[in-house]
């Protein structure tokens, strides 16, 4: 009995030794929802934090949400000039009364300027420090990140964190937003034979982007070059290709779509295909991958890679503007080939871009890797220098599975 009691007492004491060391109330912390990195004006970096104002979001004690719709007032911005990212965290505690905490951070926004210089060195703390989440997105923005974050106010949301999250969740249902979170960005940066693509974002460009109304595929846009009026200030479209921790170029939305398809992240997309028989008209089809692209790599005689890619797609007819009847079994191949041509063009453009940038963001190197028996052999092969000169053949196979709710087109009379 005495022994049992003493053991219990001992255990209780051991438990108490921790002494609530990490105990902290959520209302004693300042929740950083996004961090912005800019080239500094008075120091190395200008770091910007978006800090949530919970009482405005929760509506302070059960009442109405304080913010009247515009989502403003639910966060505030602090920008500071610091030598490194983590020193900012320390400096922030001199300005904000609550202790800054990054464990809910959604976005790490880098200005394009900084990204082109190379941001690999700033990622150190992100991978090591426990408060950062690898599920955060690294967003490359046109212009300065502090302006971007300050003006990026949600309209539908009270919680700016939710706004950031939902904006990024677009990767599931559009091809325009890359999938790579910080985790994949980090992994791909550390591997030979693949390069990451970060989402590209920008503030709404007020002045016109194009001078005429000639047809342009919707995927030709990218953030900062999106002709529009209204909506929130932020737009996320297209990607920033990285190589060795440095941003080397931008991808438009279609190219991001191809990149995602090569990694199996493309769930579905909609394509506007020019009607092969009626110029000026579009056929709109729904496109889903049938299987992940089958990549076959061989090392040719000149020691350069020869790559053949087989892309399988399927989908539904969504609209035929011309009223031409393509649904019959004998006419379907016409439509399918039109889609294949259009898609092949996209892929070829993307491949060309990737070879031009020298960044293998399609991950073809990952398929080449298996040809080498040891890692040193693979490293010695030096994929990055060989890749731009590789021969790449792509074939696309698209099948129409369904014709939508109309099984037979009747031309307008």
């Amino acid at each position, binding site marked *: 009995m005495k022994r049992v009691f003493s053991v219990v007492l001992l255990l209780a004491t051991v*438990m108490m030794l921790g002494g609530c060391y990490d105990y902290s109330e*959520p209302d004693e912390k300042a929740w950083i*929802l996004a961090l912005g990195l800019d080239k500094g004006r008075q120091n190395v970096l200008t770091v910007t934090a978006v800090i949530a104002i919970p*009482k405005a979001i929760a509506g302070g*004690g059960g009442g109405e949400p304080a913010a009247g719709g515009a989502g403003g007032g639910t966060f505030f911005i602090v920008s500071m000039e610091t030598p490194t990212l983590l020193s900012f965290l320390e400096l922030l505690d001199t300005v904000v009364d609550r202790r800054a905490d990054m464990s809910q951070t959604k976005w790490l926004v880098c200005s394009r300027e900084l990204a082109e210089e190379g941001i690999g060195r700033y990622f150190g703390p992100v991978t090591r420090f426990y408060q950062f989440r690898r599920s955060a997105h690294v967003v490359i923005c046109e212009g300065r990140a502090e302006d971007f974050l300050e003006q990026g106010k949600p309209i539908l949301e009270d*919680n700016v964190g*939710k706004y950031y999250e939902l904006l990024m969740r677009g990767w599931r249902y559009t091809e325009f937003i890359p999938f790579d979170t910080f985790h994949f960005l980090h992994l791909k940066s550390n591997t030979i034979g693949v390069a990451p693509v970060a989402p590209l974002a920008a503030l709404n460009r007020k002045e016109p982007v194009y001078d005429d109304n000639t047809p342009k595929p919707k995927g030709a846009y990218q953030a900062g070059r999106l002709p529009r009026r209204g909506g929130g200030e932020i737009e996320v479209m297209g990607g920033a290709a990285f190589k060795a921790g440095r941003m080397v170029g931008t991808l438009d939305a279609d190219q991001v779509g191809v990149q995602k398809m090569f990694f199996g992240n493309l769930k579905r997309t909609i394509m506007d295909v020019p009607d092969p028989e009626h110029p000026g008209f579009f056929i709109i089809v729904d496109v889903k991958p049938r299987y992940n692209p089958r990549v076959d790599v061989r090392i040719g005689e000149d020691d350069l890679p020869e790559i053949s890619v087989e892309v399988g797609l399927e989908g539904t007819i969504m609209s035929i503007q011309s009223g031409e009847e393509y649904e019959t079994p004998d006419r379907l191949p016409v439509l399918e080939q039109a889609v294949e041509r259009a898609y092949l063009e996209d892929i070829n453009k993307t491949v060309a871009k990737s070879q031009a940038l020298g960044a293998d963001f399609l991950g073809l190197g990952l398929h080449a890797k298996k040809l080498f028996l040891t890692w040193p052999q693979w490293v010695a092969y030096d994929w990055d220098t060989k890749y731009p000169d590789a021969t790449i053949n792509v074939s696309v196979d698209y099948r129409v599975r369904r014709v939508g709710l109309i099984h037979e087109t009747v031309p307008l009379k």
Partner: protein
Amino acid sequence: MFSWLKTLSKFIMYQKPQPAPSVFESGIEDRPLEEGEKSKAKSKAKSKAKSKSKAKSKSKSKSKAGGNGGSDTDSNDSGQGNQDQHQLRDSEQNNRKNGSRKRNSRRGKPRNAAIQKKYSDKVAENQDIDQILNQKVELSYRLEENKQVLEKLFRVPENKDAVFRSLSIGTEPPAQAMLVFIDGITNAQVQNLAVLQPLMLLSGARDIRQNRKGDTPAEAGVFLQGQECPRLGPGNGENKETAVYKDFFDRVKQAVLPNNQVAEGRTYDQVVYDVLNGNSALFIEGYNQALLLETKGWHFRSVSPPQVEAVIRGPQEAFTEMLRVNTSLVRKIIHRSSLVTEFIKVGYNAPMQCAVMYVADLANPDLVKEVKRRLESIRADQTYETGLAEQMIEDNPLHMVPQVLTTERPDRVAASLLDGKVAVLMDGNPFVMIMPCTFFNLMQSPEDAYVRWPFGAFMRLIRYAGLFLALLLPAHYVAIVAYHQEFIPTDLLMAITGAREKVPFPSIVEVLIMEAAFELIREAGVRIPGTIGTTLGIVGALILGQAAVAANIVSPILIIVVAVTALGSFAIPNYSFSLSIRLLRFVYILFASLSGLLGILVGVFIHVGVMSTVKSFGVPFLAPAAPVTRKGRDYFMRGPVWQQETRPDYLDPLKTKRQPQFSRGWLNDGDDKGGAER
């Protein structure tokens, strides 16, 4: 080459295999192996358990020798139990004398020496009276002497409850007799019509009728001669009919009293016990025996719907405070001749009638023996409630979990008995103890079996969810809010943070305030007089509801946590188990506040570890799960009734099979013998 070494080591290490005495004795494996029974008897330093079992076996053999023929009447049983009890008590007293002598020598004077000195005559008198009972003084032939002794026993001039009704039996010449009973616990009508009337008015009629048959009045006098010669042998009577009776006393018992249960008492002790239990004792001048007549008639609550264990589907009756009604409620369900009801007197100062029920061809005899052994050995001052008895017989009194299942539902008792368990019913108590009891038993409700199995299984899942919510939800709230904010989705975090902005206390204090408030409301709800019960609802709703939030004492999310916790704890079907959960919840909150989820994990580790050491009547508390034994379809989830083919393995019942594999005979096209074969 070294095989001889192996053989030698085997020879040296050889131990004689020892059969385990009983599986159901707790901690049997912790005790050193005892030598056989003989050495037990030899060893002078005898343990308590040993002496008890010995006394029991002695008394048992005696009662068997008495050949009381297994009569099932209450008073007979009680009489036997009585004897056993007293033998036990004597042996125990001897034991205690040894012990107490030592104790006294250590402590010196007894504590209440002054009072004992002041009332020394009273104390001495009480001791004298106790001697009459303890030493089993036999009744006297003289009616007057019997009366005096009984008056002394019942402290009669002061005590108005005991009634001594003197009467004369209406034979020719009349025989003097006396009826002793306690007023208020006897049925006056039965006494009037079935005892007094036959004795005083009709006893003669039988004589006359016999006379008319051709008997002479002189022969009728044979009975009356009994007064003068009490030990009249059966051979003395010339008359055929009178030869049936040994003497007058026997005749009164056999022919005069139309009472359904009549027993004979020979000692004051027996008489007093029966009289205290509502029977009447009839003394006849010249006989050193008393007739103990069944005249029980106290008031009791009628069978009513269960108050604690309500079900929607299933029988809607619960036990009452009447032992005999309760046993009948069980017997009503189990129509089986092997259902045995044994009576044991439990307790020391005010012994309570207690019934041990089991199905003789199912329950493991070791289990029954162990239950009876524990009950008989109780030397408690108060054992009038099953809760009191439970605390005296449970294996591990220091553990938080109940080790005896308490229920007020006859159907649950019946189901357990048919599993091979033992039920203990106590007089004056609507709760019945079922033993052994495991964790999974505590989480079951009879209704699980009465609804179709998917819903029964679902209800169990809900209940387990309730258990975990009740035990761990507030702790998790504290742990996550205070230590692991990164767990919380941002929106929820903002909601929690925003709601907490104006609350001045840390989360742990908030939780403790609300939990304490809730416990207060629950306790007050039980104790509050019914007439002002509605007040509690208003006050409680105010404390736990809007007001606490509006006053910024607690955050609104915590209200939800506390409410869900409360709901979870109400979903636990067993009251005493839910009490333990209520208490342990605070331990978990403490752990969580000290080191977050790590603390909770440590708590769970210790908790489950400790629980796995608990035993209920030798059966591990987590029985089919830890230690792993064969599991039926009814331990965690509920399987279909027709698949439940075996009784619980841990009970070691005499019949393992519940029902044949094809329990639905109609499925074997036309061959409906499936159900019949057993």
